């Protein structure tokens, strides 16, 4: 046996490591430099003081967090707390509506001819390929005063005269549902496609009632897809900026608008950074909880974006 052999084994291992570095390091570094470092800078900014021109600087302080918690010159105000709760509430409502609206559609697509299915999925997805500003603009046109929808709402006494359906919380919910519906249809469709139909037939035999068969045999099988969809919908919905900005008024502001406001108009970067941290923390907690739920539902690692 050549004595160099053991050495060459070691060099093989090094070659593999070098290959790993050569392939993944450029992209990984890119993400580190242009997302991780900026995020860390943002974190540090939250502990700085706001300068006279809205620029962050020394000394370090917790002012931003105090302000975020609602303590200002005029004592405590619950405004930010309301904004956070409103964001969570809007996310839950919109996600729930998306689930209810998508579930039958995903099922319906699987019952159609196999050659039609890709076209149908595409038909659902295409609107989400257009720019979200344009989509939202379309709804602004539809919900404006003196449009058929607004007139109908006035006729029913839902809104006062000469008013439109937007700006309002209702419009924000509508915008969120509209934006994220396709994100739910795709994973649900994938779950329905994999559905074991013999189980359903067995369940119909066993339980007689179609409702009970559904809850016993169908729903559990689609749960992993449903949870994947919930992650895909709830995470971006919670962080949404465009829809509440255009369709909601001051009283339907979500946390994204609170953050953005500190960097566009009001210019208090440490305060904005602290709000961004809160938003990030809430998002990560949400994902963590949904993953826990997913694992318990037997979805395992299926929650893939």
């Amino acid at each position: 046996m050549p004595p160099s052999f053991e050495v060459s084994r070691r060099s093989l291992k090094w070659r593999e490591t070098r290959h790993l570095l050569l392939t993944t390091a450029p992209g990984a570094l890119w993400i580190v430099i242009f997302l991780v470092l900026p995020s860390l800078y943002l974190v540090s900014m939250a502990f700085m003081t706001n300068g006279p021109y809205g620029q962050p600087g020394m000394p370090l302080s917790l002012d931003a967090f105090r302000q975020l918690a609602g303590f200002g010159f005029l004592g405590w105000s619950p405004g930010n707390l309301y904004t956070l709760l409103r964001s969570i509430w809007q996310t839950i409502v919109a996600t729930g509506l998306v689930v209810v609206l998508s579930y039958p559609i995903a099922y319906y697509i699987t019952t159609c001819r196999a050659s039609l299915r890709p076209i149908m999925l595409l038909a659902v997805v295409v609107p989400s390929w257009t720019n979200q500003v344009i989509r939202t603009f379309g709804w602004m046109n539809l919900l404006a005063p003196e449009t058929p929808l607004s007139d109908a709402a006035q006729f029913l006494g839902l809104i006062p005269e000469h008013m439109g359906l937007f700006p309002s919380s209702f419009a924000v919910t509508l915008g969120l549902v509209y934006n994220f519906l396709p994100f739910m249809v795709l994973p649900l469709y994938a779950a329905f496609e994999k559905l074991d139909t013999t189980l359903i037939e067995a369940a119909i035999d066993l339980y007689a009632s179609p409702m009970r068969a559904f809850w016993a045999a169908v729903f559990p099988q689609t749960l992993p897809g449903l949870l994947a969809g919930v992650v895909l919908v709830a995470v971006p919905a919670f962080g949404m900026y465009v829809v509440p900005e255009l369709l909601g008024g001051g009283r339907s502001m979500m946390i994204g608008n609170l953050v953005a406001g500190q960097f566009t108009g009001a210019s208090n970067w440490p305060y904005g950074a602290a709000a961004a941290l809160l938003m990030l923390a809430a998002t990560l907690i949400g994902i963590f909880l949904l993953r826990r739920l997913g694992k318990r539902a037997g979805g395992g690692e299926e929650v893939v974006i």
Partner: protein
Amino acid sequence: MKRGALKRALGIYWWVLLFFLYLPLAVVVLFSFNSINSAAIFESFSLRWYYRLLANDQIMSALWHSIVLAMSSSVIAVLLGTLIGYGLYRHRRRGLGWLIVLIYLPIVMPDIVFGIADMTFFVRINALTGWLAPGLGPMILSHVTFEIPFVALIVYSRFVGLDPTLFDAAKDLYASPVKRAWHFIVPAIKPALISAFFLSFTLSIDDFVISFFTSGPESSTLPIYIWGAIRKGVTPEINAIATLMIAAVIVAAIISLLVTRRRPQTPPEGR
């Protein structure tokens, strides 16, 4: 009997939902051909807003910026993302948890946090070094960052779908590492590269928030221009330019349908 009724009801619901999905787009398209400046009353058909559009230098330069941004960021993202996708596949038996977390980070990061983090970071770097002044350059850097993960995941899943012995077969048939990359790996994942490029392009065109925060006064993209116009009070050309963007998306959808028809294994991607 009962089953048939359910199916019919679902069929009706399907058309109602499609109506809901396409209504806002249809309104934009319809009013782009309106002869008067109104979002409520359609008077008669006219192309006047399209003529106005062509004469509007700001819109034309915004369109140009959008295309440059989407093109260049997609090319870089496909390059870097494909490398990561290959690395992830080739070394999938190692513990690459840190890398996976890093790749998912741009996807789960709320756009608004992403945007302001990059904006403040670029401003700070600019103050220190003079580099990265607001404009197309920093915008491309940010767009590449959020496109890389999607490319990497698409390419990775294509690799997973390949028979692993194909790699052995290429080696066995005298292909050196370079020839292997060129004559086997690239052609074998070509469908994934194409769909990754298109997805990156769509993500870039679709992005508003991150562009908004990293752009400078001279680098407005179409969504930023439209946003500004909406905020200032509607200027009517918006319907026209939005209609053109919708048309571009529908053409892209038809192309992707024709491509997937030929290759049934690539499902449409959403965002």
